[in-house]
């Protein structure tokens, strides 16, 4: 594993117990410049995860707690009239930062949600015709409660597409939970966390990820998987080409994390459920029958044909 990445993950693991995979996937998103949607019930450590991550890379951490009455301006900022200068002055909202935790994103109104998601996609905020570019790294980690919970506004499909990965936290095992208790009985471990790498190093890593080589045969494998989602009877809507791009970027990041300068089909297979999972929309009848998107993706992977020769030779 890449040394710096290993350092970040080890850092996160100091506060998060038994969540190495979640940490790894979060780093994948961070390195490829995407955003993550964490879905799980409250209290399993979603916030802690994001905080730990922010601290590990020495980034500015901001948190937006979404409530039903939150307004778009509360997220992106407002222009305020300054009597001194006799001008409107832009006061950026909490979205303008490095690592943002958008907590319980599905509790707020669609209007506010879309304000957040637009700025996520463009990495900029626009108020009164004035555009403010958000500095890199810009990484949003949104959390949401499972949609079945009451008082939630499910995110529209187009918005979901903006998240690179959707990760589920899951409960810790009994042993891990005991460890959690043991650690929290002392002081909060997060307080003592120090950055594992600097922001500049992170930016450098992000550039390196973009240069990870991906052979055409592997690209066509990604396309093969994406196209397969569009031809399944249980699926109402398959994934978009944006999803194929997302899978490619994530695979590059994952390859980099393994300290490899090329992408293997293994990387693609591993990430496909996290990239495609939230982008596939099942037909209602399939949903009632208990089919999950993860099942669909694993079925597609099983049926896929791995390229085992160079692209030109196939």
């Amino acid at each position: 594993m890449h040394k710096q990445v290993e350092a970040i993950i080890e850092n996160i693991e100091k506060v998060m117990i038994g969540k190495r995979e979640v940490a790894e996937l979060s780093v994948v998103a961070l390195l490829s410049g995407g955003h993550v949607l964490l879905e799980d019930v409250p209290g399993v450590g979603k916030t802690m995860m994001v905080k730990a991550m922010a601290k590990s890379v020495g980034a500015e951490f901001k948190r937006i707690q979404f409530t039903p009455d939150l307004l778009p301006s509360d997220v992106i900022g407002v222009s305020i009239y300054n009597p001194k200068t006799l001008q409107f002055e832009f006061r950026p909202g909490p979205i303008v930062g490095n690592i943002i935790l958008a907590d319980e994103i599905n509790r707020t109104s669609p209007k506010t949600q879309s304000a957040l998601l637009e700025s996520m996609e463009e990495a900029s905020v626009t108020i009164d015709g004035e555009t403010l570019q958000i500095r890199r790294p810009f990484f949003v980690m949104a959390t949401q409660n499972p949609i079945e919970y009451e008082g939630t506004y499910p995110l529209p499909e187009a918005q979901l597409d903006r998240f690179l990965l959707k990760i589920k936290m899951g409960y810790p095992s009994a042993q891990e939970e005991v460890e959690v208790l043991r650690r929290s009985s002392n002081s909060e471990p997060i307080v003592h966390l120090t950055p594992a790498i600097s922001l500049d190093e992170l930016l450098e890593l992000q550039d390196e990820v973009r240069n990870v080589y991906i052979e055409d045969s592997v690209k066509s494998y990604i396309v093969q998987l994406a196209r397969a989602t569009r031809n399944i009877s249980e699926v109402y809507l398959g994934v978009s080409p944006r999803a194929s791009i997302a899978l490619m970027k994530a695979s590059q990041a994952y390859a980099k994390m393994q300290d490899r300068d090329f992408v293997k089909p293994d990387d693609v297979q591993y990430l496909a459920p996290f990239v495609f999972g939230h982008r596939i929309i099942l037909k209602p009848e399939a949903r009632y029958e208990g089919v999950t998107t993860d099942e669909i993706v694993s079925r597609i992977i099983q049926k896929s044909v791995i390229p085992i020769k160079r692209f030109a030779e196939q």
Partner: protein
Amino acid sequence: MIKNSFSLIELLIYYIVIFFILREWLVPIMDLTKTGYMELILLFIALSLVISLFRIHFIASWLVKVAYILWFIVFIYDGVFVLSAEGIDFLFSDFQTNIEALMRADWPHITDPFRTFLFFILIWMLIYLIHHWIVVRMNIFYFLLLTVFFVGALDTFTEYDGSLAIVRIMLLGLIMTVSLLIKRLINNANIKMDLMKYLKLVVPVILLVVAVSSIAFFLPKSPPQWPDPVPFIKSAAGKGGSEVDEGGIKKVGYGDNDSRLGGSFVADDTVVFLAEASTKQYWRVETKDVYTSKGWEDAGYSQGELRAIAPGETIDYSLPRGPEEDTKTATIQVMDPYDFVIQPYGLKNVTSAMMSVHPNLEFMMSLDTEKIMSYVDRAPTALTGYTVEYSKPVFQYSALKDPTEEIDPMIGERYLQLPEALPDRVKDLATDIVEGRETPYDKARAIEMYFKQNGFRYDTDNIAIPSEEQDYVDQFLFETKIGYCDNFSTSMVVLLRSVGIPARWVKGFAGGDLVDNNGSMSTYQITNNDAHSWVEAYIPSVGWVNFEPTIGFNSSRSIDYDLETDAYQEDALTIEEETEPDEVVEEEPETQQTTPQENRLSKNISDFFEQNKFIFMLLLAAGIVCVFVLYKIRRKWLPKVYAALYRRKDFNESTFEAAFLQLLKLLELKGFKRKDGQTLQTFAKEMDAYFETGHMSRLTKFYEQSIYSKNASKADMSQMKESWEYLINQITS
């Protein structure tokens, strides 16, 4: 596991059932082959079953069985105890005779005791097989199927009546099959069964089988839907002749009953004669004189009188002969025994080598039909071979052209007969055909040639049978115009008689196929397909002359063109030299055109193949078996072959990819198939876990780098080679 899966009681029940099923095999065999001592053979079956039931050591079991067989043979055939001096002597001499016969492949001389011995061995093997089927395979279905087919076949083709046997077999067999199925399922599912549970499964099954069988047994059944195949088969063997069955389809061949002609024929290649003669010719058997509108009968002018002809005695009969110096000999070998003699034209006498065996051999000629039959001790007896001497008549063209129309009233009365009901249009047609012809011969020629044109067609399929009011000839001439020799020949006789030319209908065989050529003599093979009928017309100046109206057949008259004139009117029609009769005219020119040498060579080759037919068939069968076996065990040898092929290549960066793919292929052959969706890495891990190494992962890592990465991979090739060879060795070992 298998060993303990049957309790003794269970096996005992199965064996009792098997005993009864085997009895169903034995009963018809005993019945049909008139073999006795069924109880003793059944005892042997029971003994064998008991031995395999108790799993007696094979040496003991062999000893017991062999002892029983020897005792049986000596007791039955010699009537003495096996261990007596006489018995041992009998066994040894018999054994010796048969081994010698076996070595010579002289099957007819194998003695009955030895056949009995082989029969016992067969039963022995069968029981071993059944034992295997029950205890190991737990599936008796194929045996059951075989039994049903066996009894079914015997019931159909022999006098054995298996209608009850089939019921018994089905009943026992179904119960057995189902209980074995239950057994198999239990075994597969690894369920522990107590007796109660087992009975809960088995008893309903037995009740169901019994109920279904009894319903099936008592339900009314429709009569057979297909005609009985036996007459068919019999006539195929040439025994039944062309008997008309209800379906109207006959088997081609020589038959006696011609009273109802018509209907389709089925081809039959059974060889009836082999004739060794200098030329191909027609073989006459008999003639008939009365046309009944439906077929031919014998008027019985001589009240069925037979005239005895001693072997070698010159036969006195109605047909003319050629000059004495042209006498030729033909040797007939009878393949399918008929008791009549086939006669070439110009027959002089008949002799047979069988005279040494049958001193009382004589020939009898029916004065009515001129059929010659062989008799031994005054009883019709079929000969296996005989020799005929003949001199083919040569007709003088001048005599044929003689316009004399005077005929002997005796002949006129007998051979101008026509049925009352013959439609007038037949007679009118006959008159039309011969219009302008002066002499009887010319008239006959005109009628003969009439069939070659005018839209007639030769066919053996879908041939009409005249209805009650219809005339056979009328139907053919005016309505169908499709038929085979009987249609053509009968029609010609009727037309001839209509214009006052005495004529008769002749039956026999056409020339057959040339199968061997030995100098001046050729061997012709005559099959049932060659059964034929043609016409003899009485030309006053020369006597009986044969005519061939059937399309596709050529007449074999010999005519001496002795008239000094070139105004032969019918030259266009007559190609009447000694043409060999041939059914398929188109075939003949080809064989005639080939030069003798080519002929010889191709004949040699075909002879070689013909003689070694069985060897070739055996080789072919062995080849097929070999291929099948090799295919079945391909996992054992194919990897080795591939490994040997691949190993020779040098192993470096450029060949690495190919080598790796070959390795994958080898693994697949060995049964380790990578699924399409499985990545190389996960597959490598699986393989390494199986072979307990890390070689596959090492190779895979390098391979992945070489195919997925941009930069050419670098690795220690000698190490790769080592890993690769290690794996190849693992796979092929």
